[in-house]
């Protein structure tokens, strides 16, 4: 069953179209990844879904509630971790959670226990009475995720959750995020521009220039690349090439004394290759397509090296638009 439904959603800021006719659905209980370079329209989409922004056209709904027409119900159903921290750094971890509990009208009797649970879950119980300004980036993020879950939302939005974290904190945070759907019975909608991080998602949509270019599970997307490439070195390449071509009924090429061929099931065919080539095999390696390859194919550019100047232009335009029309 889909919990998030987006139909023909568009949002323009003056002359700039940040989101252009986007449609997708997200099933309950999955981790859904929204991938794209900076300025692709990810944050704009999240802001519409979490009722901070109204769409120019199209519809978005969460758990059956329309994001524009019924914002109060939508707000009750969601938790959000924004790209920039929204903690009050002059309050303690405990006070930040308490603030959230009151905002969401949680029952007094439950508050204390739920806040303690959240602090344990975030691994911050010992630091609960420290001011948030003393926390590291990773600790703040974990606290924000725990806070976003405090009122037991149906959907948790994570906008670039690992931005600005060191590699170790990133790895820790991912470990923490993948547990969420089962542990908290929540659907996770996250954006990232780190392709390797998107591997943990159950489903991915790639967005570029405000439009969705492709959607599917990470494996499905990688399969569109034509499969894995197996590389092989043997003492007798000619014989091995003949044997393998016959065995799998495909064509084998050779480059720099190394044989290679493309197959849809690279991992499973390695034992058979070794059986067939016997003692002559020197090395076998398998290269699987990455999401980065998928992105490159779909958009014609590397996600990391995407045109920085055009991102800045979009951000500048949005900022100028806000200044002119003066709204948050």
């Amino acid at each position, binding site marked *: 069953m889909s919990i998030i439904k987006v139909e023909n959603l568009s949002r323009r800021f003056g002359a700039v179209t940040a989101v252009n006719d986007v449609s997708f659905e997200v099933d309950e209980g999955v981790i859904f990844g929204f991938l794209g370079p900076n300025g692709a329209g990810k944050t704009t989409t999240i802001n519409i879904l979490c009722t901070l*922004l109204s769409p120019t056209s199209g519809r978005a709904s969460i758990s059956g509630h329309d994001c524009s027409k019924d914002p109060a119900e939508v707000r009750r159903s969601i938790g*959000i971790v924004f790209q920039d921290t929204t903690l009050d750094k002059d309050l303690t971890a405990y006070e930040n959670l308490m603030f*959230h509990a009151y905002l*969401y009208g949680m029952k007094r009797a439950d508050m204390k226990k739920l806040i303690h649970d959240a602090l344990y879950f975030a691994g911050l119980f010992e630091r609960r009475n420290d001011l948030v300004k003393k926390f590291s980036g990773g600790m703040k993020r974990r606290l924000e995720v725990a806070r976003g879950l405090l009122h037991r939302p149906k959907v948790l939005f994570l906008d670039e959750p690992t931005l600005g974290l060191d590699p170790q904190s990133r790895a820790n945070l991912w470990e923490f995020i993948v547990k969420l759907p089962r542990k908290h019975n929540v659907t996770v909608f996250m954006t990232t521009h780190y392709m390797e991080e998107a591997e943990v998602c159950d489903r991915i949509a790639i967005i570029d220039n405000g439009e969705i270019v492709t959607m599917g599970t990470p494996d499905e997307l990688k399969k569109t690349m034509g499969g894995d490439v197996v590389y092989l070195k043997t003492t007798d390449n000619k014989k091995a090439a003949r044997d393998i071509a016959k065995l799998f009924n495909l064509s084998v090429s050779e480059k720099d004394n190394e044989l290679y061929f493309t197959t849809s099931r690279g991992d499973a065919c390695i034992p058979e290759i070794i059986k067939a080539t016997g003692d002559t095999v020197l090395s076998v390696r398998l290269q699987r397509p990455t999401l980065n390859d998928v992105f490159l194919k779909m958009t014609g550019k590397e996600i990391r090296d995407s045109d920085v100047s055009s991102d800045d232009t979009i951000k500048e335009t949005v900022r100028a638009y806000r200044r002119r029309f003066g*709204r948050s």
Partner: protein
Amino acid sequence: MVEANVVYVLVAREFKKFVREKSRLVSTLARPVIWLFLVGGGMSRFVSPGAGINYMQFMFPGILGMTILFSSIFSSISIIWDKEFGLMKEILVAPVSRFSIVIGKALSGTLISVIQVAIILMLFPFLGIKLSFPAILNTIAVAVLLAFCISSLGIVIASFYESFESFSVIMNFIVMPMFFLSGAMYPVNKLPAILKVASKLNPLTYGVDALKHAIFGSGELVDFSIFTDLGVLVVSSLVFVTAAGFLFERKK
């Protein structure tokens, strides 16, 4: 609809931060004291306001008004800070009515201002002013109303700005003129005609006038009747709160 839990937690947050930052308390109390004793002390040598009081005593209600003006406006425009550094988003995505947020912020500003006014008010014996206990209570009551009015105005102002860059604009073009045209430093009825009109459009004028009523009684020092003062403060508070609620509801 106003949700009590939201109003409570917004006020509690502001109060907690206020108490925690001792340096902020000291510096906000320093301004009125400096004005009172340095400006007031200097001016009282060659200005005589009449009515049997000296200039420093004349300035006292105005300085209370100034304390309220500055601390209420600053408390409210901290919303701009919260917008820039994110906390406002956490509040805006919560399932709470925008009106509760406005009331919560306005009452936060009111509480912080009134605490400061109460401290400054205790200076009255040093200025040779005699205040009865009911007069003190009346002064505090007027301070509450005025602080709520100015805090709501502050929220309206804050809703037009996205970043703190505009801080000096607010300071120079709104706060300072409001202070000088409020009757805090000189009686409004002696101003040139055009400034008199401006001062009559300034809610702080009525607040300062009401403070004069509370402190000096309704003698020759006041410009309006106490009913006019309180009426204007109540009506403008309602206008500002409604406008702020509307401006908060508006989405990009």
